[in-house]
């Protein structure tokens, strides 16, 4: 059976979207991994008000964990040269004004680029919005990292989100364990890259939204 990309490979592919000088906010879960695979010169932002924090503290060095230095997902980081601490008002000025790249997880992305990633549908208490709506609306580029399908095999890239949305027409790029898909405003979803061994047709079969499939679809490169 053909393999899907593992989480680290997805993170490596997402990390490729970040260039020297970029500032990025890495969302809860999967996106956190990107911090491990970026070149020098990228700074990460945490909503609490830290830009440019250092490497994550790993489980086997828990004694180094300091609550004062946490990333956007609440994981322990470390101070680093060039870091800046600020308050949440400044943090959301940064987030809302296109100064950051946002890499977030997703429950669903629609063919228009609507994002659902905060609420599983059981009313207001069915999720945690945090800064997700600000990032989705305000980031320079919104990259969604997620599995291509749910655990029971249902498409997560859909015609219309069935979960409550985070923001309308906000997603720029979707990176899944099967493909890289670009959202073209007012046109739809353009398949850009596929996981090794997968064909565009196979990807379309696992995608509810119709994909624009150009002739030059490549294999995902890292």
């Amino acid at each position, binding site marked *: 059976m053909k393999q899907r990309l593992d989480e680290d490979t997805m993170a490596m592919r997402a990390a490729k979207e970040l260039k020297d000088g970029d500032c990025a906010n890495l969302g809860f879960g999967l996106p956190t991994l990107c911090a491990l695979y970026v070149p020098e010169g990228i700074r990460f932002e945490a909503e*609490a008000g830290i830009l440019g924090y250092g490497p994550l503290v*790993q489980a086997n060095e828990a004694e180094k964990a300091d*609550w*004062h230095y*946490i990333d956007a997902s609440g*994981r322990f980081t470390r*101070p680093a040269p060039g870091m800046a601490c600020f308050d949440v*008002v400044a943090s959301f000025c940064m987030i809302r004004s296109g100064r950051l790249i946002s890499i977030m997880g997703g429950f669903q992305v629609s063919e228009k680029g609507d994002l659902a990633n905060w609420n599983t549908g059981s009313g207001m208490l069915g999720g945690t919005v945090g800064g997700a709506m*600000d990032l989705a609306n305000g980031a320079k580029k919104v990259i969604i990292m997620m599995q291509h399908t749910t655990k029971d095999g249902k498409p997560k890239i859909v015609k219309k989100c069935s979960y409550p949305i985070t923001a309308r027409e906000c997603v720029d790029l979707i990176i899944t364990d099967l493909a890289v898909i670009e959202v073209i405003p007012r046109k739809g979803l353009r398949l850009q890259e596929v996981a090794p061994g997968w064909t565009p047709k196979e990807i379309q079969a696992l995608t509810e939204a119709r994909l624009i499939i150009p002739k030059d679809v490549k294999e995902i490169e890292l």
Partner: protein
Amino acid sequence: MINKVFTSFDEAVADIPDGASIAAECWGYPATPQNLIAALKRKGAKDLTIITHTFIPMVYSEEDAALPSLLLPQMKKLITSIAGIMNLGAGAFLQEYVDKGLEIEIVGHGTLAARLQAGALGLGGIYDPIGLGTLLEEGKEKRVIKGREYLFQEPIKPDYAFIVAHKADKLGNLVFKGGYRGDQPAMAMAAKTTIVEADKIVEVGEIDPEHVVVPGAFVDRITEIPEDGYGTPEKGAKLIGLLTQISSVRDLLFGKVEQR
């Protein structure tokens, strides 16, 4: 010099009446004014409105930490951007209180910050671009300004702000550490009365004027966290030890980057 220093947390919160609104940070676990929260629990004021960025359930004993959720039985309303961490059972732990009448207002975090900032500036309202087309637009006035749609949002002006600072001088000038600033400067500026617990109280002149984050004019009462208080480095280390024994929390704190 006027004395803003209180030696007792209980005295510092003694005047908080039933029905008061209180802004208190809760970021990570100990970026929380835990000693003031515990004192307010002891005092027992009722019908409180709590404004906090995250409302984390108490997954450990009250001896180890005192988060805003400790006040649940005393609360009438909660304004927050995170009503419980999904992986820790989402908002389920709140449902019991909602059923008993607790009102919950979910607000995006940036909007929460903007509403506190609006409160601090004395504004009557703001038009915010965030939340359009989502559950959070329900009941909000919409307005198109220069071709773009916005939601009307009310300012937040809490009666009290509970603040946890790294250092406070005796005039109330505050400095923070790392990500502990969070919403706290906006909360301190927006609140009618600001009560601080600081890792350390220092003499006037010990904080460089350029390094002050919240100027003393915004600060009314100052307390110092004692060695056996909540939020000390020792208690923090102990908590991490306890939390990493809960697998779902361990996954949140270290999971994805374990053994890489």
